[in-house]
């Protein structure tokens, strides 16, 4: 049975071909290498993603290069009653790409071509394995960019962004990934290929494109994606505000929005993370401030200046001890480098971290942050806060040394309390990381049984047999078919 499966997959994916490209050739070359990997080392690599979650078992790992090959893999999986798990760069933090039940892993990293840039329709067609930052760098000279900019944008893929409906600092003004996906070709779990959405603004029928975005790989596999091009703004101002109290920074954020200004980004870092970042990138962050607010406004010159001045005034009125305007593009880039590499910077302090992701109403930011510090103290953990304050999107980083006995239990307990404090404040489970396996157990705390039942109906509309990325998002009690998919695994074969 297993040999037969492997043989079929190998026939569907002959050894590497070197492909041409209309615009961009894929990077790297391993011509002649099999694109179906079954050795234990390769499979072990794909057991995990960037989360702390373990327990995945990968079946055969496939590297398709076309939608037809993805379709062939899905059909073979169906014929063998096997689950599939799509995978991008594996940067997910909620365990969404962890292979449960020894599924066939469909790694989309070789589908990494920018197929077409169509400025008349303001759209770029890309394959799912294109790296987020590569796309924006490619578009920049043409006067455009792809607006979602997750902190992992140097490595994460557009397909992964679509699956997680990813955010990023600049989603405050521009909206999250969903807003920027116009259409997508999808290989459904049945093996059918379908086009969801369209280049026209109001396609007929249900908005299946929108329903698909954020599906975390449980609704099918995007094989070609039309992303919206956002025009580069001619003027940008980046401000760095320093505060004596974290609450002052949080309250400034609320006051800016209340004043009718929606900056492109508003990010807060507390003192601990600011020190770590400054030691790491030397961007000139003030290490004596209790918190810093990085605010950016974009647009036309006149309005940008007005908004920047006003943000400075609002900051000072809320206790800002210093307001600094980035004097050059270099300084601006360095400040952003600091913010976006914050998670790497903490490696100087402890070897491991658990990055949480919840959203609270902006007005509750200061209150919930105070609770986050109290929770971490009580569990004897170090916490650092760096977050998308403009969206109310908290990112508490619990920092620890995994070799310390019992520490992971304390990390999970503290995490659970942070999630519950966010929900109690009128917030939600996740702003941009998704549910994956991380927050499945909490879904019942935000949603009723009826709500979850209807989410499962959406899932089953795309995947009636629940074979695409089983065991994710919907809690098991509300997703019986997933249990069947997971039980169908030939135990022991791939372990």
């Amino acid at each position, binding site marked *: 049975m297993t040999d037969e499966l492997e043989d079929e997959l190998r026939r569907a994916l002959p050894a590497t071909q070197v492909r041409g490209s209309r615009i961009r050739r894929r990077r790297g070359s391993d011509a002649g290498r099999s694109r179906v990997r079954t050795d234990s080392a390769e499979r072990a690599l794909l057991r995990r993603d960037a989360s702390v979650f373990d327990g995945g078992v990968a079946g055969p790992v496939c590297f398709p290069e076309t939608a037809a090959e993805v379709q062939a893999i899905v059909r073979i999986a169906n014929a063998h009653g096997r689950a599939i798990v799509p995978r991008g760069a594996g940067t997910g933090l909620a365990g969404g790409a962890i292979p449960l039940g020894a599924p066939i892993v469909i790694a989309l990293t070789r589908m990494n071509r920018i197929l077409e840039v169509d400025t*008349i*329709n*303001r759209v770029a067609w890309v394959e799912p394995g294109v790296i987020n930052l590569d796309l924006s760098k490619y578009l920049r000279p043409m006067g455009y960019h792809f607006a979602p900019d997750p902190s992992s944008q140097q490595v994460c893929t557009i397909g992964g962004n679509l699956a997680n409906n990813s*955010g990023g600092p600049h989603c405050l003004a521009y*909206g999250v990934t*969903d*807003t920027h996906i116009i259409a997508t070709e999808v290989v*459904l779990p049945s093996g059918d290929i*379908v*086009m969801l959405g369209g*280049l*026209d*603004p*109001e*396609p*007929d*029928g*249900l*908005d*299946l*494109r*929108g*329903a*698909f975005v954020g599906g975390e790989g449980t*609704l099918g596999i995007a094989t070609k994606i039309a992303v919206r091009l956002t*025009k580069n703004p001619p003027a940008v101002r980046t401000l760095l505000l320093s505060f004596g109290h974290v609450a002052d920074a949080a309250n400034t954020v609320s006051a800016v*929005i209340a004043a*009718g200004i*929606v900056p492109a980004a508003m990010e807060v870092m507390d003192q601990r993370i600011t020190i770590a970042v400054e030691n790491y990138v030397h961007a000139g962050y003030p290490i004596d401030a209790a918190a810093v607010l990085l605010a950016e406004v974009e*647009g*036309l010159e*006149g*309005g940008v200046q*007005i*908004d920047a001045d006003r943000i400075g005034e609002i900051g000072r009125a809320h206790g800002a001890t210093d307001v600094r305007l980035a004097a050059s593009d270099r300084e601006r880039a360095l400040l952003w480098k600091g913010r976006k590499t914050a998670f790497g910077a903490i490696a100087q302090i402890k070897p491991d971290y658990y990055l949480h992701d919840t*959203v*609270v*109403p902006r*007005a509750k930011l200061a209150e919930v942050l105070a609770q986050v510090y109290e929770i971490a103290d009580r569990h004897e953990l170090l916490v650092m806060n760096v977050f998308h304050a403009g969206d*109310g*999107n908290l990112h508490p980083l619990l920092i620890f040394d995994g070799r310390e006995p019992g520490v992971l239990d304390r990390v999970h307990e503290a995490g659970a309390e942070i999630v519950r404090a966010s929900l109690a404040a009128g917030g*939600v*489970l*996740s*702003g941009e*990381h998704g549910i994956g396996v991380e*927050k499945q157990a909490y*879904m019942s705390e*935000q949603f009723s049984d*009826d*709500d979850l039942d*209807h*989410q499962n*109906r959406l*899932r*089953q*509309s795309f995947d*009636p047999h629940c074979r695409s990325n089983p065991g994710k*998002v*919907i809690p098991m009690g509300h997703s019986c078919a997933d249990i069947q998919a997971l039980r169908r695994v030939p135990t022991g074969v791939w372990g």
Partner: protein
Amino acid sequence: MTVSTEVGTRLAAFAEAVGPTGPVAVVGGRTRWDLGGAPTEGTRLVTAPVGVVDYQPQEMTIRVGAGTTVADLNQVLADAGQRCALPDRGGTVGGALAVGQNDIDLLGRGRVRDAALQIDYISAEGRVVTAGGPTVKNVSGFNLPKALVGSLGTLGLFGEVILRTNPAPATVRWLHAERAEPLPVFEALLRPAAVLFDGQAVWVKLEGHTVDVDAESRALEALASFREVEGPPPLPPHRWSVTPADALRAATLPGQGERFVAAIGVGLLFADCPQPARPADLAARQVADRMKQLFDPSCRLNPGRRP
């Protein structure tokens, strides 16, 4: 307009009115009643809750009954210096979301499908179901509100919704040129709220800081002879959805009739004649049909309508 009753009470009453059996539809302003087909004879009509339940301008969210008129919603938002993406065509909030059609200035105002953060709806079983969440950013679970917006009430009947709001621009200005090339006009502007073209004339809606609107107005003067006008031209009756590229060559599209107004950069087109039927993707249709079957197995919600 603010309604002080408990959030759950009004929804529960609406759920009771919908009940668990029999064909049922929500009636709003009837402004798009025949879109996708009118409800079949014998369909019981109910009305959704009315009024603002909670409004937090600093959160950029508002919770309203789906039966609230868009005009009333807009008034409440305007009083706080805000607005939202829903077009005011005389109908209700629930109707605007169920239809999902955008306003012509969607480049400034945003898309209707992006405005609905949370939808509390009544299921075919007569139960209250919540899709989405109350915050401006949320990826907790599947993107169910997207399936609901534009569903013509065939998956659930909207009771209350939480909408994303935005600051209203300080200055709004419509400009008109009797003759202009629409693409250079569109490309000269950073974020126009609308650029409309009827084959000869161009209308532009600019909005934002006064200084920016002034700067963009000056940029337009270099391209054609623009003058300020009250608003957009009257729109022909039939709405088309085409690619932005097709909107640029609207005059050559077959079947649109004598007069058209195209939204450049968007692809909305208003024409004398209805848009010819577009070929459906059969696999997508199967997913949509399965969704309908799973959400409403007895086809009791808005029977006769198909989005």
